[in-house]
């Protein structure tokens, strides 16, 4: 069975799990929710459904944070997921929408070019000219659809759009209604409507939320993985999933190599070695978990297609360098320093040392 689509949505991949959870879920559900809040938490963090189906963990990390996020949505408050790049904000938001509304598709990708019409509603000008203003002449947006149907709508990278456009949301969030002054009417939100927004708090060139808007969100900050083990676990799992999904030719298990990737990322990110003994220069890139995952996947691809079917130092090296060196001057210096002071002397890393040096 081959699927032509590059990527399946969360609710498609985990349809079985969602079904099993829904069937065995006898706890009260908020209006228009597909699952009870407890079942949503189980879906995100993994566990067992009532009929014994194993629910895989979608997010690895602090349970309390996810509980706060779900409870926020259950109290019909909008949820803002904040965090460094690559801390699974969009990932969590997608799965929350899939579990609660059954669809993660209702989404607005915010950019500097997003205008109010893409948030509120637009006009079908042909109809507008022919028949004058009417409800039929309105062009609906994901937001209006979500309000009418009582589902979740996601705003990706909320802070990337202009502050004035962001503020369109204020009335929607506090009054749960979207006025259409042209028609002297309004879109009234049905129960179950809510907003999940994601934003990262590190990137430059973003428009800060106005405090009026910020007040209307409950904010959950997703942290970087706390330990090497946790992060390695996340990277391993995602690399396997993505690789399988891309139908990459199978290679021999590469757990050891993944540990090396994560170790290198963490050390450069935090500016010191894991044992805290050596201080290092930090790189300009954020070196997030998400980037570690993509290094893992590309290393897999190069090992499978160009190597001998085993992820080794050579297949890692060029991908690692590409991920670390974002600024050709500063980052090269940081990486070189790291090479000489850490990689060269570390047991079993000499192959990586040689390989990276060749690339640099």
């Amino acid at each position, binding site marked *: 069975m081959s699927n032509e689509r590059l990527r399946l949505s969360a609710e498609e991949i985990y349809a079985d799990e969602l079904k099993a959870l829904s069937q065995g879920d006898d706890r009260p559900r908020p209006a228009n929710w597909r699952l009870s*809040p407890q079942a949503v938490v189980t879906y995100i963090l993994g566990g067992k459904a009532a009929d014994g189906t194993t629910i895989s963990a979608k997010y690895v990390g602090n349970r309390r944070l996810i*509980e*706060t996020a779900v409870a926020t949505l259950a109290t019909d408050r909008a949820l803002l997921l904040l965090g460094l790049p690559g801390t699974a904000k969009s990932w969590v938001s997608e799965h929350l929408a899939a579990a609660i509304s059954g669809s993660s598709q209702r989404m607005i990708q915010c950019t500097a070019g997003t205008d109010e019409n893409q948030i509120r509603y637009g006009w079908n000008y042909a109809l507008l000219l022919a028949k004058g203003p009417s409800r039929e002449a309105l062009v609906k947006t994901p937001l209006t659809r979500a309000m009418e149907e009582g589902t979740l709508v996601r705003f990706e990278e909320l802070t990337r759009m202009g502050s004035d456009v962001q503020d369109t949301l204020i009335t929607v969030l506090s009054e749960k209604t979207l006025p259409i002054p042209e028609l002297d009417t309004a879109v009234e939100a049905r129960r179950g409507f809510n907003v999940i927004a994601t934003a990262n708090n590190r990137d430059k060139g973003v428009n800060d939320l106005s405090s009026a808007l910020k*007040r209307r969100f409950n*904010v959950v*900050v997703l942290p970087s993985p706390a330990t090497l083990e946790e992060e390695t676990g996340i990277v391993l799992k995602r690399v396997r999933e993505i690789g399988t999904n891309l139908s990459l030719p199978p290679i021999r298990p590469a757990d050891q190599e993944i540990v090396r990737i994560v170790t290198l990322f963490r050390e450069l990110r935090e500016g010191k070695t894991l044992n805290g003994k050596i201080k290092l220069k930090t790189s300009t890139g954020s070196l997030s978990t998400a980037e570690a995952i993509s290094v893992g996947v590309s290393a897999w691809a190069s090992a499978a297609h160009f190597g001998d079917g085993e992820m080794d130092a050579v297949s890692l090296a060029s991908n690692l360098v590409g991920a670390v060196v974002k600024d050709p001057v500063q980052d090269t210096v940081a990486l070189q320093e790291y090479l000489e002071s850490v990689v060269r002397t570390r047991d079993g890393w000499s192959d990586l040392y040689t390989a990276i040096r060749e690339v640099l």
Partner: protein
Amino acid sequence: MDERLHLLGIRHHGPGSSALLRQALDALDPACVLVEGPPEADALIPYAAEEGMVPPVALLLYASEDSTAASFYPFAEFSPEWQALRWASDRHRPVRFIDWPAGVSLALSKHEDGEKSDTAHSSDPLDLLAEAAGYEDGEAFWNTLIEQTGGQPADAGQHALSVFAAIEEAMTEARAYQTETGAMSETETMRHTQREAFMRTHIRQALKEHEGNIAVICGAWHLSALRAPSKIVDDKAMTKDLPRIKVEATWVPWTDSRLSFRSGYGAGVLSPGWYRHLWSLYAASETPAPESFAAVWQAKTTALLRSEGYPAPTASAIEAARLALGLAALRGIQMPGLAEMREASLATLCYGDEVALALIQRKLYIGERVGEIDEHVPQMPLARDLTLWQKKTRLKPEGLDRELRLDLRTEAGLLKSTLLHRLTLIQVPWGRLVEAESGRGTFREVWMLRWVPELSVALAEALIHGVTIEQSAGNWTLERAQASNSVTALAEMIRAALVADLPDAATQCIERLQAAAIHASDITDLMNAIAPLVRVLRYGAARKLPEEALRALILAMSIEVNAGVRVGSHSLDREAAAARVQAMRGYDEALGLFADEALSHSWRHQLALMVEDDQVAAPVAGLSLRRLHELRAWELPTVAAAFSRHTSGQELENAGAFLECFLSGGSEIILQDHSLLQLVDTWLCELREEDFIASLPLLRRSFTGFDSIARRRLMESIAKGPMQDSGMTAAHGTAEDGPFSEALPLLYRILGIGGQS
């Protein structure tokens, strides 16, 4: 032992435990209540019922002879022990403390130096039990235990009793297990056995004296040992030969922040602020709705955030309360716990920002209450005196840092200052003097106040010196003065005594200092002693002063200094010279303030002699010349001549030290007197290259004292080109400008201006 005996194992300072205890007591209606606590404090129990007693308070037990040995038994209003005391007093039932005497525990802890004076074990065993049951903190466990009553008050008492029975059973198991595995050290086990022998003796006595039920309130750990059959003879033998010291007991105010530590009883509480909130829930006659329970807490959080300058609107407080309830529902608990409240505040009120929460968490979770003691409670005389003073000065003890600005020209300000200074003298540092005599105003003092319960102990310690604060401070100062021969220390004591308004003590200290000054051989010490005394004399007018005596003393000491300074400055080593220069600056300034013409004149004379005297250490000579110049005692040509004599042809080390002291402490001299700058310049130009390089660090050091503007001006005047003799008219050839410009960057670095590197 007996059916009438009821053992109620509690969690120290646990509000949930308190609530259950009250229900159990109501159901048992005991004829006598026995509480884990030191029997020496029995006489103090009735005061717990007084109206003026506001927890947190503590029983202070201290050894009468040696006040360093002391222990506290703190009570918050939500402590089961406190509730037991109040319950009994409300119903006029006798209460007694049944732990081992504090006299024994203090004596033992003195014996076993190194071990803490903790009378109990480190963590509350009931918390371990809660942990084993899967609860994150001990209180959450109790919360569930209480909720199980299902709000039917009729059964509450029986339910509470069954909970206590279950606790006893579980703890008996736990203890048996721990004894088997030998987790406790031998001394620890020994101590427990001894304590329990005391407890059993008390219980036997109570059973003999009273007809009805006997309720014993103690840490859950001891339950099995109290229940176990034992022989009177054994207990007697166990308790007979223990060391014992005489102790005094009193009630003292306690603070929230100290409650959160461990002391006295083994278990400290994590969050008094939260426990108090919980207790308001349990203590209410009608259980409040979860909504109002969450709302009150979040409103408190909001108010605190606002006081820290965060926007925190009321609307967000409502949302925080809703989220807390939502989280509780999600986690399947009836009332939101501390974790739910915290996470809700974080997400709504702080926008996920931990920093904001960290700012208020001390006030929110720990609290800043300081207890109050009823005025009828017999206090030791010093504490009573302090209470009087506190009334008189309207200063209330508070547990958090508070800034106090005093204007000494007002009577109230002076009174407060006097009290704080006296307390400092008797080593009860309630206030820390942050700033005094700063700026021009000498009538201003800024104190940082913070009351910590240890101060009560310190107060008790000061008792040996006197029964009032004034007396104790005076006597203690005198005692220290008698023991000291150091001129500087004595001068400091005089100053301290004067600002503490203790003129008699000051006068006696002055006498001591006069005696000591005659024998003093070190001029530096004398100089250092004079400066603070002059300051008091000059600025201390806000207080009563033995002015004549003080003037006479300063005069005598100054004469001594003037007489000995020149010879005393011969061949000083580097460190001694540095100290001397420092002292001379202070002394010189002090003489200016003292304004005695004859004295100043003789000082100037000495300065001149020191510049002329070749044996005087170079730094001293440098400073002397500088002062002469500044005082306009010498004409410029004379200064220039002296300068060149001390620099040119001298060894680099001496010349450098001279130059450093001459230059440092103000840039005007070299900026305004072109001729002096020229002298420096000439000296530098004549140095051999290696000497020049060796002198660079020294030059840099000299110039760092100047501010950046002065350095820039200096640079500008140098950059104009090589120095010219005012008499010379012809400019140097332009050929020299080349190398000079090349050298400029280095010069900038030495002066520490401009340049990125």
